[in-house]
């Protein structure tokens, strides 16, 4: 399904806080996450054991998913993080963090680990 991705700062899903006071597990639980409208949750036939694969022309990422009434239908919200920024876009020399066209699908694959992303970057050195 086609969605619009918005990344935003959320005080309870804050990467600075998790790096400082959390664990790698809590970092992944709180930051490798997206929020969608409960109606979309049903449309995607999601259950709590499933994750969401979000992709665009840049990359893809697999994250946890939670229902949130405050998110409009057709939109997916992610806290600003190394996970959300796999999908943010450079457009006309500027950075696009909001209203990014993405495809989303339910998946049983595990979420992307912090170390996986870092190792992917280190390999490029």
């Amino acid at each position, binding site marked *: 399904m086609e969605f619009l991705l918005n990344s935003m700062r959320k005080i309870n899903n804050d990467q600075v806080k998790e790096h*400082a006071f959390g664990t790698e597990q809590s970092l992944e639980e709180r930051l490798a996450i997206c929020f969608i409208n409960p109606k979309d949750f049903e449309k995607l036939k999601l259950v709590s054991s499933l994750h969401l694969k979000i992709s665009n022309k840049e990359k893809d990422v697999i994250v946890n998913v939670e229902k949130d009434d405050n*998110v409009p239908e057709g939109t997916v919200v992610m806290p600003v993080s190394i996970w959300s920024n796999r999908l943010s876009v450079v457009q006309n*020399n*500027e950075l696009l963090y909001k209203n990014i066209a993405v495809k989303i699908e339910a998946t049983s694959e595990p979420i992307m680990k912090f170390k996986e992303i*870092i190792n992917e970057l*280190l390999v*490029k*050195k």
Partner: protein
Amino acid sequence: MKRFTCSGCSLLCDDIIVQSDGLFISEVMGACLKGKERFDQVSAKNRITSPLIRKDGELKEVSWDEATKKAIEIIKNSSIPLLYGFSNVSCEAQDVGIKLAQKINGFIDSNASICQGKILNKAKSLGINLTTITEIINKGDLIILWGANPAETVPRLLNKVLFSRGKFRMTGREIKTLVIVDPIKTASFRVMGVRDLPLIIEPNKDIDLIRMLKEECCSVDSIPSQGVAGIDKNDLKRLLLHLTGAENGVIILGQGVIQPHPDYNLVEELLELLQMINERQEKGRISLLLMGGHFNMAGFDHVALSSFGVSGKLEFKHNQLIKTDDTLVSKIEKENFDSSIIVGTDPISHLPHSLSSKIAKKPLILIDNHHTATSHIAEVVLPTAITGIESGGLAYRLDQVPIELNKIINPSNNLPSDEELLNQLYRLINQGGSE
């Protein structure tokens, strides 16, 4: 117990009570969640207290001498270094950062260039009034949050500007109207009262609302009956009446507004709307407040302006400032740099993967006080004291007001301040690499 200024965010609250013996902080009163976290970071588990160098793929603790030598080696082997960050350090450190960039013929820019700096420069060129927190507290009667969610980013902003009682008005919150324009019902909506105006706009439709407001600026008679961008006609009427009737209105802009679009420039159109309203207003005006995140996001532009007469990015060749069309984004995208010096920020997390992967490919020197995703990629990590707690200096608040930050305790492991460390690198470069 003494009063200190908090460096937890760009609001720089100057009413934080701290109990300390100069070595440890035992109590912090009056700080918000972000402020409290800032003070707790002194002893956070990801604190870096010794210099690190990457050896055999792993970061290893080394002496200061070895770490600075490695950093100088990277700088000397680099012909087009990129210096980036500088919004979580003092203005004094920003100033030394610019001098270092000049010395090593680098390109230097701050986080502001991909955040609020873009709006500031456009607002300046259009002559839009920027306002201060004090002005809003004392005189404000209309506060519009457009694409901004201060409840989660600058937590005490609304306490200060919305719930305060000003000097020049008999009443406070009762006469202040809050309007929020956002596609998502953020935490900031929770403070809204019955006379406030929540406007949930359809995603990506801000431009339709702005253009309608520009057309209908003088009249509320021809608003389309079906509303605009998912906002109904009556709410639009109320919005127009507020915009044209406010005596001292302010629009607080957040990241939501500064997103690029191939067909139009949202910020420019919004600023034109402000200009139009202000020209037609008889008794009042609408001003602008920009909401940055990092505590000294506004500072870099002021320092660059005072040093070189240019706000924002600076590029040097033959130790002279040159004119450049490059931006931070274009530099990284075209890989027009061969090393980076990152100061007090985490680009590996906050830039799009297409850019962070290019930063990761080149040697990276990180100057910061905490492990982040960027420290996992760095070749050299040089730790520093936390500004506003372990070292002092000047910072510019989000409303461009300069505020002095004071040292409260001695830094862990006698860490240098960002300014001291950058000065040391500058001296070492000057002396040819050894001290």
